[in-house]
């Protein structure tokens, strides 16, 4: 088996944090521990008058197991399933890398 990863289109991540909470519910992580966190960069002005940089970027943590139990049962990870903005994909890194090639403002994480 090759390596698996999460491909995230951060151009459209709205910062809803469903991934964070779905992960906590799935794994029972307590307050103060996360399997994935949404980091915030912005808003800061790139150019007057309305060109802003504002990215929300979900980052899997040390506790991310890529939902091993769910995936073993044939299901997609819970963060991917519940993402309101539908910006997350799970799969073999080789497959996701091809997707990454197609569009900018994406990031491919390989937590394990």
């Amino acid at each position, binding site marked *: 088996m090759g390596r698996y990863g999460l491909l995230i289109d951060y151009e*459209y991540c*709205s*910062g*809803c*944090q*469903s991934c*964070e*909470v*779905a992960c*906590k*519910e799935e794994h029972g992580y307590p*307050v*103060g521990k996360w399997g994935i966190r949404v980091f915030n960069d*912005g*808003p*800061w*002005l790139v150019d007057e*008058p*309305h060109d*802003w*940089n*504002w990215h*929300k970027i979900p980052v899997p943590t040390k506790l991310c197991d890529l939902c091993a139990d769910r995936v073993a*049962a*044939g*299901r*997609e990870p*819970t963060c991917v*399933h*519940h*993402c*309101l*903005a*539908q910006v997350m994909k*799970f*799969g*073999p890194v080789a*497959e996701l890398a091809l997707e990454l090639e197609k569009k900018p403002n994406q990031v491919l994480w390989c937590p394990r």
Partner: protein
Amino acid sequence: MDFDNDIGKPWRWTEEDGTVVTRGAAWSAPGCHPTGCGIKTYVKDGRLVRIEGDENHPVTKGRLCVRCLTLKDFTYHPDRIIYPMKRAREDRGLDKWERCSWEEAYGIIAENVGRIKEKYGAETLLAMTGTGRMTQMAGVGAHRALGTPNGCYAQSGFACYGPRVSITQYLLGAPYPEIDFAGGLPGGYDDPQYQVPEMIVQWGKEPLVSNGDGLFGHAVLDLVKRGAKLMCVDPRLTWTCALADYHLQLRPGTDAALGMAMLDTIIAEDLYDHDFVDKWCYGFEQLAERVATMPAERAADICGIPAEEIKEAARAYANAKPASIAWGLAIDQTVNGAQAGQCILSLIAITGNFDVPGGNILQDIFDGSGDKVVAGLGWKLLPDELKEKVIGLEEYPAYVNMMLRAHADRALDALETDIPYKIHGIWFGSTNLLAPTCSAQPKRWYNAAKDLDFNWVNDIFMTPTAMALCDVFLPISSCIEQDSIVPTHYGGTPNYYSALNKCIEVGECKGEFYNYHDMGLIVNPSAWTGDNACTPMEFIDDYFVGGTGMNHAKLREEVTHQRVVGYRKYETGHLRPDGMPGFNTMTGRLELYSYAFQSFGEDPLPYYVEPPFSPVSTPEVAERYPFILTTGAREYAYFHSEGRQIPYLRELVPEPLFEVNEADARAKGIKDGDWVRVENQFGFCLLVAKVTNAVKPGLVHAQHGWWFPEEDGEAPHLFGVWKSNINSLVPHSRNGKLGFGAPYKCLLCDFRKAVPEDFENVDVEGVDQPGMPKHKYDDNFYRLDKDESYQGASPAAGEGE
């Protein structure tokens, strides 16, 4: 990579290990708008073990926000009230609740309600309701369950949705026209009938977070990904504003000026749809003449946006075919909102975007859903002499006749002055109005309600409102503990409706509508017996999907039913009860010049008037309180005052935030995370600074809904409800001419770093207003539109023609 899913599975199945999976939809509780997101509940041995989004839902497709993801924590929270409780009247404010049976609780309610009705009349009972939840329909609770005409939503000027719905009814003869996000079409965005809009305008609305009234907000993002351009009209920089192609960052409360200027540009540059205007609009010439008084150059000064930006935005909207405008809460939360709404409807109309695929869509009048929601079947059962006693009817018929509810500000006036009559009791239907949710001046509501003869509440948790004011507490079910129905926009748009499917029981909790039925049977039996007899399920079916031929038993199998109603219904006769083409108005056309407004003494055409407190209308106040304050932007974590006791939600937003620009924070020596004291001429509160570019220098934003379930619940602290109560700064009775709208989003304030003494005084300061006669305030029955000093200060307060 392909995964397994549950597409095509029935509404309920049992897994190998005995877990029962049920598909259904969410509404309330936990509170949300009637968006009806699809959920799957996994129940083992009668207990909810997990919840997931249902990928079968045609719109939400398995996605779920944090409030439903934590439904299990909400359902089984140790603080949840799951049995009826009672408390002696003299113990209000003290934690001396005792568990009782439903029978005893209803008995206490029946005895008190019966006595009040007999001695003083049914109209002396108020039925207060919250927003968005199942229980928001004051009509059914007040009129049918209780038998009083005085259902009431406590928000000053009904400054949420009601104004938009009413304005639309008066100008178009239809409910609020939602943007077309293909919610009613089986093929969704790819349905052959649908067209992805070239542009979506979010005007005073952030639907991604709010899911307002049934618009699944992330549909906007879905459409942006499919090529729709985005325009945002918002004083703040939200994440979607940063994503947008156009951001009109106007001064709060100046929307009508911007709308007029956009109309003027579109008309002057001949960018409007001549065919639609000729065939279906009334009063175009008059509108053109009026908006010519507000060229972009003038609006630029008022709104604080360069004239060329306004013109470019107008051109971009007019040239996009189709285009839609999602207009939101901010329109309701100004006194000039009726006119701003009038401008937005006129923009949709003259660009030909009404009821076209990808435009703003209208309800089919023969569709049969939602037509009972306001009337709630109860209004017609009230005797005429009671209907005439509804508070505010004479003064604000445009409000009271449309909403069939007491005018919020006049209800507080009645409580404080006994005019037109003394109020003797209040039923709080899932509303926590002492928390900064809806009511303006919540300490006044507290003072006015705390000595009434009898108050009772139905809710989920012990709220400050329940603790402070009530004698009986009725525990309410969550959306997975009852069979019910959720129609988007309360039935008012042709999208979809879904089944709430019961899968667990918790304690002795009861669904809102089941409570209406059972309580009504005891306290207002004539509305529930004889010809009016029904089971709770029949009541729910009739109420939500009465004329459609659908009922819960059928809907449960389907879970979500898409309504698939046609476009351009002004051509097909589906907007008028007589089946003739046209709109359901006096002229049969969409009224750009409104005879309805005129009949209420309002200007038939849009005009601009300054917010009641602004650097322009009250420069002397602005000198003392130089910052423009806007309130109430939504957070994913919370629905108004709900959710603070859910650990995973509280972790997302632990403290009540006050957004302040970096330059302003620096000038005041305030750092991110500092507690600040925010105050204006009406009150003060304590909030935590969030230093951000989301607000421009001179503008600040305060979160609403805050109380602290972890703190002392007893009076006077009441779970810290006064500490961060931003509605203390919102004035009473500053409404538009029709009685609608209030300046929740355009006030003035100042702030400084908080000191320890600020926290010591917060519970008591202002509660009893020392030195002020207890039940008299100088703004009881105040009319902004009749205040000459205010009119004089406004640059363009248009008069009727």
